[in-house]
C-alpha cells in the first residue's frame, strides 16, 4: 500500500473532479515542507501572532488531589482560543504559496471557522465558512465572530444540518471552485494528504511539550492524552511521542449519553470501517450503511468519523482509545475551574475526565501530559444551561 494509507485506513475517496486538485495539493505540500523559508514563516506567525509556545503547566492542586503528576499543555492560550489556529496558519500559508485567493472551511462549533476567518483576514483572502443550519442556531456567538472577521457564513440545509453535512457542502463547493479556492480542513480527516498535513501543522504541540517536560522532569512522561473529535489536537499531541514506546498514548472520544444509548460520538468504540469525507476509517453507521448522527454535549467532538491515522494507531495497539460521557466531562470541567482557575473547552474536559480515572492507576512519581485543546468561553452558554438544568449552579 502507498503512503496515502495508514494500514488499511485513509486513501482518497473523492470524485474524479478532485483527483488532479489533490495531486496539485500534495505536490505543493511536499514542496513546502522541504522549504526552510516556509517553516520560518509558519513559526514566525505561530510565535508573533498565535502566541506560541504555549506553557506546559504543572497542575499542582489537581496532581495532589488525584495522586499523580498532571501537566496541561495550554493550547487554550492560543489566539482564538484553541489548537485549531496552528493548522489554519499552516494551510493558509500553503494556499498563498499555491496562488489561491479564496479559502473555504467547514465548521461545527465554529472554532475552526473562527480560526479560518482569522487567518483569512490576516492574509487578505476571501473566506466562506460552511456551517449546518442547526449549528448556526446553537453557536450564534461564533457566527458573529466569523462575520466580524469578514467571512461569509453559509448555512447548510441538508441531511442532519450539522458538521458532517457542512463538510459535504464544503467538498461540493471545492469540486466546483478548486481553481482559485483552497479548502482548509479543520481536523485530521479527509482525503490524503489532509490527515498528514494537519498532523504536520499540529505537531508543534508535542514537539514543545516533549522538550518542556524534559526540562522540568528530565525524562519522558508516562502517559500522553488528548480528546478526539476528528483527531487533530490528539494527533498533534501524539506525533512526537509515537516513536517513544515507553509513553502510553490515550485518545478520549465522546460517549455522549453513554455508548449503550446509541447517542454518542465514539467512532472507535463500536464503529466499523466505512468511507466518508474522502477517507476510509472508523465510522458510525446504521444497518443500511448510512452514516449515523453523532451525539455529544461538546459540538467539537460531535463527528461520526475519526482521522485515519487514529484508526491505524488503534488497530496497531500503539494508542488506546477510550470514551467519556457528557456528565463525566462536565464534572471534570467544573473541577478544573475550581481547583486550577481554568475554564476549559468541553472538548478538552473529556480528556481531563479520563485523566482523573487514569490517575487512580498511577503513582505519585508518574506523570500525565494532557492536551488542554481549548478554552471554555465559547461554551459558556452550554455550561450554564447544563449546570442550571442539574441544579448545580445558583
Amino acid at each position, binding site marked *: 500500500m502507498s503512503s496515502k494509507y495508514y494500514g488499511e485506513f485513509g486513501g482518497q*475517496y*473523492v470524485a*474524479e*473532479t478532485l483527483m488532479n486538485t489533490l495531486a496539485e495539493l500534495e505536490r505543493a505540500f511536499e514542496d513546502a515542507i522541504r522549504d526552510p523559508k516556509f517553516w520560518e514563516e509558519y513559526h514566525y506567525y505561530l510565535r508573533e501572532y498565535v502566541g506560541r509556545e504555549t506553557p506546559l503547566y504543572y497542575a499542582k492542586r489537581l496532581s495532589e488531589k488525584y495522586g499523580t503528576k498532571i501537566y496541561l499543555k495550554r493550547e487554550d492560550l492560543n489566539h482564538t482560543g484553541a489548537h485549531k489556529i496552528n493548522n489554519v496558519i499552516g494551510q493558509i500559508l500553503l494556499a498563498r504559496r499555491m496562488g489561491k485567493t479564496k479559502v473555504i472551511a467547514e465548521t461545527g462549533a465554529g472554532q475552526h471557522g473562527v480560526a479560518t476567518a482569522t487567518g483569512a483576514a490576516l492574509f487578505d483572502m476571501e473566506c466562506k465558512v460552511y456551517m449546518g443550519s442547526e449549528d448556526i442556531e446553537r453557536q450564534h456567538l461564533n457566527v458573529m465572530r466569523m462575520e466580524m472577521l469578514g467571512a461569509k457564513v453559509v448555512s447548510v440545509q*441538508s441531511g442532519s444540518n450539522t458538521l458532517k453535512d457542512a463538510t459535504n457542502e464544503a467538498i461540493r463547493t471545492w*469540486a*466546483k471552485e478548486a481553481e482559485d479556492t483552497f479548502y482548509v480542513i479543520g481536523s485530521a480527516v479527509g482525503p490524503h494528504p489532509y490527515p498528514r498535513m494537519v498532523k504536520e501543522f499540529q505537531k508543534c504541540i508535542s514537539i514543545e511539550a516533549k522538550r518542556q517536560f524534559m526540562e522540568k522532569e528530565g525524562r519522558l512522561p508516562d502517559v500522553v492524552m488528548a480528546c478526539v473529535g476528528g483527531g487533530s489536537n490528539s494527533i498533534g499531541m501524539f506525533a512526537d511521542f509515537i516513536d517513544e514506546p515507553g509513553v502510553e498514548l490515550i485518545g478520549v472520544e465522546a460517549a455522549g449519553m453513554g455508548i449503550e444509548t446509541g447517542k454518542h460520538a465514539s467512532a472507535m468504540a463500536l464503529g466499523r470501517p466505512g468511507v466518508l469525507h474522502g477517507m476510509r476509517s472508523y465510522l458510525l453507521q446504521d444497518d443500511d*450503511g448510512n452514516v449515523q448522527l453523532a451525539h455529544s454535549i461538546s459540538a467539537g467532538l460531535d463527528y461520526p468519523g475519526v482521522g485515519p491515522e487514529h484508526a491505524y494507531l488503534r488497530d496497531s495497539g500503539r494508542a488506546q482509545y477510550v470514551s467519556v460521557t457528557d456528565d463525566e466531562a462536565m464534572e471534570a470541567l467544573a473541577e478544573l475551574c475550581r481547583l486550577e482557575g481554568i475554564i476549559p473547552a468541553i472538548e478538552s474536559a473529556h480528556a481531563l475526565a479520563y485523566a482523573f480515572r487514569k490517575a487512580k492507576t498511577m503513582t505519585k512519581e508518574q506523570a500525565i501530559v494532557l492536551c488542554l485543546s481549548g478554552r471554555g468561553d465559547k461554551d459558556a452558554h452550554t455550561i450554564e444551561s447544563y449546570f442550571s438544568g442539574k441544579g448545580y449552579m445558583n
Partner: protein
Amino acid sequence: MNRIEERLQQVKERGSKAFITYMTAGLPDMAGSAAILKAQAEAGIDVIELGIPFSDPVADGPVIQAASYRAIQKGANLKKIFEMVRQVRSEGCEVPIVFMMYFNTAMYYGLAAFAAKCAEVGVDGLIIPDLPYEEQPQMTKVLDETPGAPILIQLVTPASGDRIPMILENARGFVYCVSSMGVTGQEADFHRNVVSYLEQVKAVSKIPVMMGFGIRTAADVEPMKNTIDGCIVGSHFIRLMEESNYSTDVAKDYVRTFKAQMNGEKG
C-alpha cells in the same frame, strides 16, 4: 454479453444516440419506483441508472440530495432495491440497469456479497462517484472474481486532463463524461471548454461516450451532438417525476420525446 454493452452496440448499429435517465430508487415508494422503471423501459430507454440513496451524497447537487433523503425517510435501502430489480427481471424486463451509489453502501454490505447479489438479481453496471480510479482495485478484483458481475463504469471530468487515457484504458460499457465541475444538476451550466474536452475523450475512447450532469432537453446537447454517443439526464428527470406526482405517462413521454429529438426525428 453484458446488457449494457449489448444495448449500446445495437444503438450504434442503428446509427443513433443512446439515452439514459437517473432516478433515485424508492420514490415515491418501492412499487412506484418499479413502475417508473418499467414505463421507461417500455418507452425505449437504453439504460436506467438507479440511485441508491445514501445519507451523505457528496457528489450530488440539491435535487438528488433531497430525493436521496426522502427515499431514506421512506425506508428505501439496498436490500429492498435488490428485491425490486429481482422482481422487474422476473417480469421479463431486460433493460440495462446501473446502480449509481456511494462506496460506503457497497462496503457495508460486503464487497464480495454485493457483487454476487448484483450478478444474481441482474444489475449490469455500477457508477461509484467516490471511488476514483486509484481506489478501484479492491472493487475490480471482486468484480473480476464474480461470474456475471456488473461493469464498473468509469467517469471522466473536465479536470481529468492527462488522467483520461489511464482511466479509459480498460473501461467497459460506456464512459460517463461529466459535463461540468462540481456536482449533479447544474442546469446546462456546462464547462466553458466542454466541446473540446468531449472531443478529447472521444478521441481516446474505444467505447461509447455519454455526457451527463445538468442536461434537461435534447436542445441542451445539440452543440455536442456529433461528438457524443448519447447523454444522461438525472436531476431534471427527478424534478419532472416529482412535479407530475410520479406519473408513468410523463416518464414515457419524456423518454420518447428526448430520444426522438436527439436522433433528429419528430418528437
